[in-house]
């Protein structure tokens, strides 16, 4: 295992993050505050409680997931796409590293950034609502797995993308709708029965449900199913990346 290479990639990626720390920090704080103003104050005042939790607090897990997932994807996608774009990928390909080490460096850094953003949002949210976390260990586990699995997905997106537009395509066209329709801002039980069934095909539902359970102890789907779903998703992404490096798809001719 070339841990020195993993560390080099990780540090290099994190440096980019620290260079733009203010942007990285300000934008989630601002958008979280906006969500609270719009959903929490304006709409939330008309929805008293959801499943025994104030609406303002109810949306916190969904908000954290929304940002963590988009940040994990876009950071990992950009991280590996940029070397492809500038041509510096030659160095990764010619270095004594295997696919796992490259992935650990890039995905590790992207997941760290996403985790940082998630924590910032949680802290921001705690200024607006009273937050209680019933299952802190599960909460951390769900958060970490989400950061990791979506950073893996982002890594795949970055390798697949042929230009900057495509880099935005997956997050914008697929992931954001899935998150919004995945129960970030409502409980699935609030939907008509047909839609409840359809929603169960949305993988993000399992994530948000499990994450919300760790806060309030209530869930749309069984917690074990949530964990299973995210573990399965992580393995699927890992398998895809393994195949990408084995075949050299879009990176090695």
């Amino acid at each position: 295992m070339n841990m020195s290479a993993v560390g080099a990639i990780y540090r290099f990626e994190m440096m980019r993050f620290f260079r733009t720390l203010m942007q990285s920090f300000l934008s989630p704080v601002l958008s979280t505050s906006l969500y609270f103003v719009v959903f929490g104050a304006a709409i939330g005042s008309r929805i008293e409680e959801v499943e025994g939790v104030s609406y303002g607090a109810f949306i916190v897990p969904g908000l954290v997931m929304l940002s963590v997932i988009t940040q994990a994807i876009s950071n990992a996608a950009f991280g590996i796409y940029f070397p492809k774009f500038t041509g510096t990928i030659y160095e990764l390909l010619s270095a004594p590293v295997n696919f796992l080490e490259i992935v650990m460096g890039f995905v590790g850094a992207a997941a760290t950034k996403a985790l940082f953003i998630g924590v910032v949002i949680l802290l921001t949210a705690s200024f607006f609502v009273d937050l209680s976390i019933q299952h802190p260990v599960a909460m951390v586990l769900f958060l970490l797995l989400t950061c990791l699995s979506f950073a893996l997905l982002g890594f795949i997106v970055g390798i697949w993308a042929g230009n900057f537009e495509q880099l935005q395509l997956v997050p914008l066209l697929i992931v954001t709708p899935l998150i919004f329709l995945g129960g970030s801002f409502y409980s699935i039980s609030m939907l008509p029965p047909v839609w409840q069934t359809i929603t169960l095909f949305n993988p993000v539902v399992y994530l948000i449900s499990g994450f919300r359970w760790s806060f309030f102890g209530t869930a749309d789907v069984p917690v074990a199913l949530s964990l299973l779903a995210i573990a399965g998703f992580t393995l699927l992404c890992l398998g895809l990346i393994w195949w990408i490096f084995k075949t050299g798809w879009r990176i090695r001719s």
Partner: protein
Amino acid sequence: MSAILSIRDLQKTYAGGFEALKGVSLDIEEGEILALLGPNGAGKTTLISTVCGITTPSGGSVTVGGYDIITEFRGARSLIGLVPQEVNLQPFETVLNTVRFSRGLFGRPRDDAHIEKVLRTLSLWDKKDNQITTLSGGMKRRVLIAKALSHEPRVLFLDEPTAGVDVDLRKDMWDTVADLKADGVTIILTTHYIEEAEAIADRVGVITRGELLLVEEKKALMARMGRKQLEVQLNERLDSIPAGLAHLDLELAETGDALVYSYDIHAPRTGITGLLNGIAEAGLTLRDLQTRQSSLEEIFVDLVKGDAS
């Protein structure tokens, strides 16, 4: 001396069906400088990319320092430094960070003293905190070299290192290459500039259309392939070559006061005595004599032309 790089029947066919390498075999001795010459699209870069792991070979085998590049890629790649042809750098990083990154990537522990030495040698130390994007083209090329040297490679590939580089920098690079050779580093460079190969290489290989036409000691190649020219300057001006000399391979200079005779130094008879006798018989008197050896460039052009016909 033993071969540090051993290439056996290396083949590369790209997905589109293009055969970039048609079975190249080559041994490179430790500590030598080999220049690979060849026209654009000859397969020089594919050869380097394949050895370095950027391109997957379609057939054949390569070992670097005894390590197979596929099954023992860690051992092989740790020994190799690569300076690519394109100036591929992350624009917003600083020089120091990007060079340190390379060292870490190749599994070497942090060594600030070594990085400083490399940057100073390449006159980059003053620029170490500059963003890459603020550097001139020549400086960026130096950064590429610094990255390749950051992890102390035993084999260095330079893919057209001096393309688009001014004369000063080119001389600097030649000096750097000489220093590396003195440290025992094996260097393989591709170039369009024949004078570069002539100036620094020990051996020269010529590639065209995916095949290695020859690999030879530079001096032997020049001696073997070299045609010489003898320029005979006359005290008289001529309108045409005298009849007594017409059978020789002669050209009359435009000014009319010199004859240029081309001959093969390795032929049993060079014909120089006959030429001089003929000149005397024609009643001409000599003002000066001058011989000239053909350069590698001329040899190269001849070779590639010969292959094309």
